């Protein structure tokens, strides 16, 4: 018989009856921890269910929550938790409370918290509750960023083409210059196609990227929580950093680098592991996919260090 164990407001996993008894004897489980298995109406303290193994029953308020009644509760929401949306004090970020805050304010607050206070934000981030909520956050901001970036691109490209067609002659076929309107029109059509392609490609890549990061975190023995937690970190980090993509020209690269930094911190905090493992989980897939990325980091940091050394020398 397999038991689901909950401790300190969080699910600790599924264990066989023998494992539960041995962990109780080894004090790895506390008598006040809660258990549930199929056939039980509600969660019970281990001291009640395993009275022979534990010395004294411990009264615990299991509430009237059946963790397998509503879907949200079953995905890891612990019994007896006062907070309806999270486990323990992990209820953030603000997007999780969008029903009370309102969507615009929840987006702004979440972006500010993730980008400016990543350590605190991910230390209190809700780890469970499904992937739909953070994915919605990511997609809202990503969609806006993609559309705005395509508009930027189309405007810049259109302007450049207009200028070039006015300045040069004989660039078209048969030495006939293409009309500026046709070139700009083509640029707009290409922009719309590119935008649609990006709206399809970005979410697919986001899932693949999260899967690679979680697999790497497992390789590094840092994945102390399921894929859902990694997905939540990446969605909030990448989604919030997408706001920086709204800044023309340099916003994209700044947003990308900051998303990496925030993801490293977030994985460490959300998985209760070291930031170094978070860094490894974020950078190793990039390095494996293309060592260039590491070279790019080295080049950027090298330039920054050299600039800092030069300014301090002066």
């Amino acid at each position, binding site marked *: 018989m397999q038991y689901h164990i909950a401790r300190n407001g969080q699910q600790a996993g*599924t264990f066989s009856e023998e494992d539960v008894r041995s962990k109780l004897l080894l004090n790895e489980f506390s008598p006040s921890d809660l258990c549930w298995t199929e056939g039980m109406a509600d969660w019970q303290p281990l001291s009640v269910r395993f009275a022979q193994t534990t010395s004294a029953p411990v009264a615990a308020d299991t509430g009237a929550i059946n963790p*397998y009644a509503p*879907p949200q*509760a079953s995905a890891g929401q612990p019994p007896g938790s006062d907070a309806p949306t999270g486990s323990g004090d992990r209820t953030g970020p603000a997007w999780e409370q969008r029903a009370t805050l309102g969507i615009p304010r929840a987006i702004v607050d979440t972006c500010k918290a993730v980008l400016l206070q990543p350590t605190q934000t991910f230390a209190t981030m809700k780890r469970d509750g*499904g992937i739909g909520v953070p994915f919605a956050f990511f997609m809202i901001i990503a969609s806006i960023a993609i559309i705005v970036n395509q508009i930027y691109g189309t405007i810049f490209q259109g302007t450049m083409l207009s200028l070039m067609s006015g300045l040069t002659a004989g660039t078209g076929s048969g030495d006939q210059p293409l009309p500026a309107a046709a070139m700009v029109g083509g640029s707009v059509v290409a922009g719309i196609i590119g935008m649609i392609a990006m709206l399809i490609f970005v979410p697919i890549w986001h*899932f693949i990227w999260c*899967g690679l990061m979680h697999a790497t975190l497992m390789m590094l023995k840092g994945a102390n929580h399921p894929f*859902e937690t990694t997905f939540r970190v990446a969605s909030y980090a990448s989604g919030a950093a997408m706001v920086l993509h709204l800044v023309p020209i340099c916003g994209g690269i700044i947003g990308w680098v900051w998303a990496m930094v925030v993801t490293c911190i977030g994985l460490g905090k959300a998985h209760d592991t070291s930031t170094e493992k978070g860094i490894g989980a974020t950078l190793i897939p990039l390095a494996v996919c*293309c060592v260039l990325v590491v070279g790019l980091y080295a080049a950027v940091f090298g330039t920054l260090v050299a600039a800092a050394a030069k300014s301090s020398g002066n």
Partner: protein
Amino acid sequence: MRWRHLHPGELDHERLWLAVTVCAAFIGWGILASGLPTPRCIWHEMTGFPCPCCGGTRTARHLLAGRLDAALSTNPLVFLAFAAVLLYDIYAASTLLFRLPRLRLEEVPHWLGNGVRIGTVAALLANWAWLITRRM
């Protein structure tokens, strides 16, 4: 590691990753079939040496054309990764269609976990050495 049915509300990995990989396959097929430009490896162009994933696009092209031997020799690890994804998709589609129990990695023995870790790193390095030797 055991077979079991999903708990209510548990993340359905089979449904999720089947959808993701099928969509990714369609996008990849669309890009290759339409003749759109594919990304070039700047690392390869800068150094003359391949990165660990160099040849991935060519492997996909060979697979689409049914040239399995060419795909395998272009980048063996990418070929095996595509094969693993295909096997996973067959498994995922089967479990979804026939409502079968799901394979879940719970309480993986240390020796198995470490074996997978060492094996993965060794495979990556061996594949990279193969690519460098062949100067892909």
